[in-house]
């Protein structure tokens, strides 16, 4: 029985299709992680601003992204935007936008947490030795904040990679959907197909996410 199940993976182009699907997932993840890292740092710093208006504006952006499920954002950008503005955006582009919006909000909150967790005397000492506000951020606050940020940021990155499987609902076919296509085509003849297909998908996600965790661990050690 079991050897029939695994054969499903190697029928026709199936394995290649799974890899292509993984490519789609990874492309969306990489683009949105890069954008969210850059924008998230700026958002995080804005969230520590002295001005209440700036802080509450950032805060409402974060809350709006958090309380509305990601799936709804995907639908809003892909379907509703077209209906209202007649703006036809390609599905993968919509995925990049929505995941960047979400990643930026979450990363911003992590950065805010890391920055505010630093003792106040760090900033005060920086100012006292004559650094400008920008220099204090560049040389004192950010280098320390990034170290505190690392574990939770890596967690966010792997979460973003795995959450890309939602994009199938706006018609982007990624690795999990291709797995389901393979399972459904073979389920009647090979009932064990689902086990093997999910095992392969597990393995594919693992070889992507595990090195990221290893690299993070390595950095944490080096910076200690």
């Amino acid at each position, binding site marked *: 029985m079991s050897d029939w199940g695994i054969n499903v993976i190697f029928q026709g182009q199936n394995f290649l299709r799974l890899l292509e699907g993984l490519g789609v997932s990874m492309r969306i993840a990489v683009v949105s992680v890069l954008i969210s890292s850059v924008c998230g740092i700026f958002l995080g710093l804005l969230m520590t601003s002295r001005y209440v208006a700036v802080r509450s504006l950032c805060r409402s952006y974060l809350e709006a992204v958090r*309380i509305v499920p990601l799936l709804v954002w995907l639908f809003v950008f892909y379907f*509703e935007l077209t209906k209202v503005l*007649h703006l036809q955006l390609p599905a993968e582009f919509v995925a990049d936008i929505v995941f960047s919006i979400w990643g930026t909000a979450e990363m911003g909150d992590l950065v805010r947490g890391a920055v505010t967790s630093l003792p106040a005397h760090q900033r005060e000492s920086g100012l006292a030795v004559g650094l400008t506000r920008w220099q204090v951020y560049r040389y004192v606050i950010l280098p320390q904040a990034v170290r505190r940020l690392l574990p939770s940021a890596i967690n966010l990155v792997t979460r973003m990679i795995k959450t890309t499987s939602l994009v199938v609902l706006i018609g982007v076919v990624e690795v999990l959907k291709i797995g389901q296509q393979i399972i459904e085509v073979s389920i009647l003849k090979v*009932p064990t197909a689902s086990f093997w297909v999910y095992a392969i998908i597990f393995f594919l996600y693992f070889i992507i996410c595990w090195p990221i965790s290893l690299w993070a661990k390595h950095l944490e050690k080096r910076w200690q």
Partner: protein
Amino acid sequence: MKSWKKVFAVIATFVFTLAFAAGCGSDAQTDKVKTSASSSASAIEQIKQRGKLRVAVFSDKPPFGYVDQNGKNQGYDVYFAHRLAKDLLGDENAVEFVLTEAAARIEVLEADKVDITLANFTVTPERKEKVDFAAPYMKVALGVVSPTGEPVTDVSQLKGKKLIVNKGTTAETYFAKNYPDIELLKYDQNTEAFQALKDGRGAALAHDNTLVFAWARENPGFTVGITKLGDLDTIAPAVKKGNTELLNWVNDEVTKLGAENFFHKDFETTLLPAYGDSVKPDDVVVEGGKL
């Protein structure tokens, strides 16, 4: 002073968040007006200019719409889509398949992502309010599959026995409403339900007749004792609400294809390999839109 600032911050946050949410809400309201206004008279011209007919199909519902091991779209719906492209644009490959999920079948039409939805789309009164259905090309009813040794050929045989159904399907509602004295064993997944039948946890299993036919064929020792039960549902092509030009064209096309028994040919090519001769084509196929 400080606490006053805090209160202000909380209120401001609340207001902004509401504004965001309201922004999304108003989108949903205005779209109704716009969709009916934007249905252009030259829908078919647009498709011809584009040179491609965009059709929403399933990618994981064999044998109706699925992707085969070489990554090609296949199935009963896909076969029909190729024919539509051939008749409209002169090339059966002038079709762009947009893979869709059950939940997004209405949205893809409303947002102009596709011209026609051919995704095993059952006609219901609720859906009719949102999209325009053309003449049907398929029909489904419930079927009951049971072990060949103890076949269930009539619903009365099920009294006092257990019947396996899937949660949320028409089978569940039909039996709960019409035969409350039959005990139902409910499962979430198709695979679980069929496994339960194999394990002998119930006397029979009820589901869409097309599905039980396909399953019985792959699993010797089981037969579909009741092939048609309950309300007959139809499956039809759908276009965007108000797109009368394309709707009329699809209706004409279904009538024309009926004259040459096209859907029987479609059945033989795509469904017969899955169902075998256990299914009579006339139990599933609708020709010329006439039941």
